[in-house]
């Protein structure tokens, strides 16, 4: 691989750069996972790290996710700062017990004596034509587990900034990488990366006055596209990119909803028991008197992730979002 600097800035490149910079800045940072060494990961996010930092810093492990995460827990206990790669969303499930019973709880169990500064990178979500078990939106499992931070970037610049912040955090962070955005590009200059912000800040990606689309990760570009299309209908939509599900930025979300008076949560994850229910409840509890309509959800259906030839019927798209915008009781409110 030639250096990232001479390439167009993709999210994948920014993630690689973040890992490389974190490893260069702190010798305690270790990367481990399946195929992360010689191959550079199946998505090439760890490309070049084993060569640059040695196989002790970027390690190919046996194929066993509980073992990878459990080993990383022990490494963190000894003062290292491991960054674990889970190959795909659904392949992270064998590590679930380690995550829930140890990663999330150890600080609490030991009254703060033992912290586990771990980053768990999980490529997630659909839209890449993957066969089964390669397209899950698993965030609801993670955000229901106290003790974890759960973040997900939607832009190239955020991929860098959020991953650096996750690695720097003394708390365990589940870092969800929207795999269909790996090859998305924007005008990010890797030689001048944005300052690393603390986790937990949402951002308004597009200002608007009619309604707020609250979204994150792979659904952010879809919502921006929907907002452009909505102009033809006379709607001026605001798009809030959460960036972090835990901690949740009530302030930015509610400020937006209070301005617009209408809100829709958009995500790929299923609707029932998904993040949208929590977000809608939070918004309703805090902004009830500003709302002109119930908070709606546009989400994946409550079905096992469909086979690739059917996924376009499942994923929230521009039309489904615009349909929901049309149901926001415009007659009653205006």
């Amino acid at each position, binding site marked *: 691989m030639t250096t990232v600097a001479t390439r167009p800035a993709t999210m994948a490149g920014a993630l690689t750069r973040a890992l490389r910079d974190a490893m260069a800045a702190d010798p305690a940072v270790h990367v481990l996972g399946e195929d992360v060494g010689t191959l550079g990961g199946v998505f090439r996010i760890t490309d070049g790290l084993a060569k640059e930092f040695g196989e002790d810093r970027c390690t190919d492990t046996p194929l066993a996710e509980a*073992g990878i995460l459990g080993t990383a827990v022990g490494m963190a206990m000894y003062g*290292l700062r491991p960054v674990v790669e889970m190959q795909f969303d659904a392949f992270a499930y064998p590590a679930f*017990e380690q995550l829930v019973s140890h990663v999330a709880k150890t600080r609490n169990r030991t009254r703060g004596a033992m912290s586990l500064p771990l980053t768990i990178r999980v490529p997630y979500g659909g839209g890449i034509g993957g066969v089964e078990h390669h397209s899950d939106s698993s965030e609801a499992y993670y955000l229901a587990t106290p003790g974890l931070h759960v973040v997900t970037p939607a832009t190239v610049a955020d991929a860098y900034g959020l991953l650096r912040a996750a690695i720097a*955090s003394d708390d365990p962070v589940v870092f969800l990488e929207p795999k269909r955005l790996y090859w998305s590009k924007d005008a990010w200059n890797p030689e001048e990366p944005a300052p690393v912000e603390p986790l937990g800040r949402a951002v308004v990606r597009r200002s608007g006055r009619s309604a707020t689309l609250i979204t994150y990760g792979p659904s952010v570009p879809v919502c921006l596209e929907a907002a452009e299309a909505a102009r033809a209908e006379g709607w001026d939509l605001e798009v809030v990119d959460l960036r972090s599900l835990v901690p949740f930025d009530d302030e930015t979300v509610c400020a937006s909803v209070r301005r617009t008076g209408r809100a829709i949560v958009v995500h790929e994850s299923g609707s029932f028991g998904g993040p949208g229910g929590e977000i809608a409840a939070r918004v309703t509890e805090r902004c009830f008197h500003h709302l002109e309509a119930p908070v709606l959800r546009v989400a994946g259906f409550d079905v096992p992730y469909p086979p690739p030839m059917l996924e376009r019927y499942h994923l929230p798209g521009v039309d489904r979002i615009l349909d929901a915008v049309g149901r926001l009781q415009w007659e009653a409110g205006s």
Partner: protein
Amino acid sequence: MTVMEQRGAYRPAPPPAWRPRTDPAPLLPDPEPYRVLGTGAAADADPGLLRTLYARLVTGRRYNAQATALTKQGRLAVYPSSTGQEACEIAAALALEDRDWLFPSYRDTLAVVARGVDPVQALTLLRGDWHTGYDPYEHRVAPLSTPLATQLPHAVGLAHAARLTGDDVVALAMVGDGGTSEGDFHEALNFAAVQRAPVVFLVQNNGFAISVPLAKQTAAPSLAHKAVGYGMPGRLVDGNDAVAVHQVLSDAVRHARAGGGPTLVEAITYRIEAHTNADDATRYRGDEEVAAWRRHDPIDLLERELTARGLLDEEGVRAAREDAETMAADLRARMNQDPELDPMDLFAHVYAEPTPQLLEQRAQLRAELAAEAEGAQR
């Protein structure tokens, strides 16, 4: 030879050469568990070690009895006793240096205390005023692990990290016979062997996983044989022979420290008491079996050796028991004091950087407590 080959139309190339990746023979456990006490080898056992083991086993057994009594008085929610397994518990701790780490399972309170952890702090989990009652870094003892075998990969990771850091630290991980059926047991042993991590795995085979006997747990020749499949040595030892356990573990620790990689040690022992005070062992095993194991008691074995060599007399026995009573009296007195509870601790250590949502909930509880206090004043 096939017809095609006879005609010369098809000449298969020989497959690429294959050979075993390691010689399995040196990895195999001995056919019989290793024993010292009651054999000729006992004469070479160091008198100081024998005395130390004896005193600490007597104290350990008293600790188990006291903790079980505390469950009956309602001072402990539950206690999984290691009576009958004291040799494994104490030898595990004594085989380690101060800089080494112990990764205990929930039945290993004695080993935790033998590492130097305060006896009351070791029981915090079971008293229920917090989870882990001690600072793991103070005596290098990981939290007592209730989910089975999940602590084993932690031991591997810690040992691996120590080696990468250049420290000659060894991790000793403890697990029961039931725990060897868990996936984490397999993954931990595999990782350890591949990475040549300085870890020693001690399986205390006490015959039962709650009620399920070993025959329903595994079809392996022995649990120690499992080591061969991972490419590490397996060792079988009489788990009630404190000197033998100490020797085997010390050898394995030395081997790991010298860069030789991990070892799996299976100690054959027996859980004399029920799984916990909440269990009824008469439902799944007979008195005769228990009686047979009582005749192979770890403290009796040491006492016989010490007495035969003139290293222990009635006065010595009395002194050991008095020391144990002193420990028990202190434990009783301190456990009978109500622990100080602060409800705000619920929120104190969930995150290094607490979320705004958690801060809101903390404020809610604080307000509830203030209202409660105000109500009590009226």
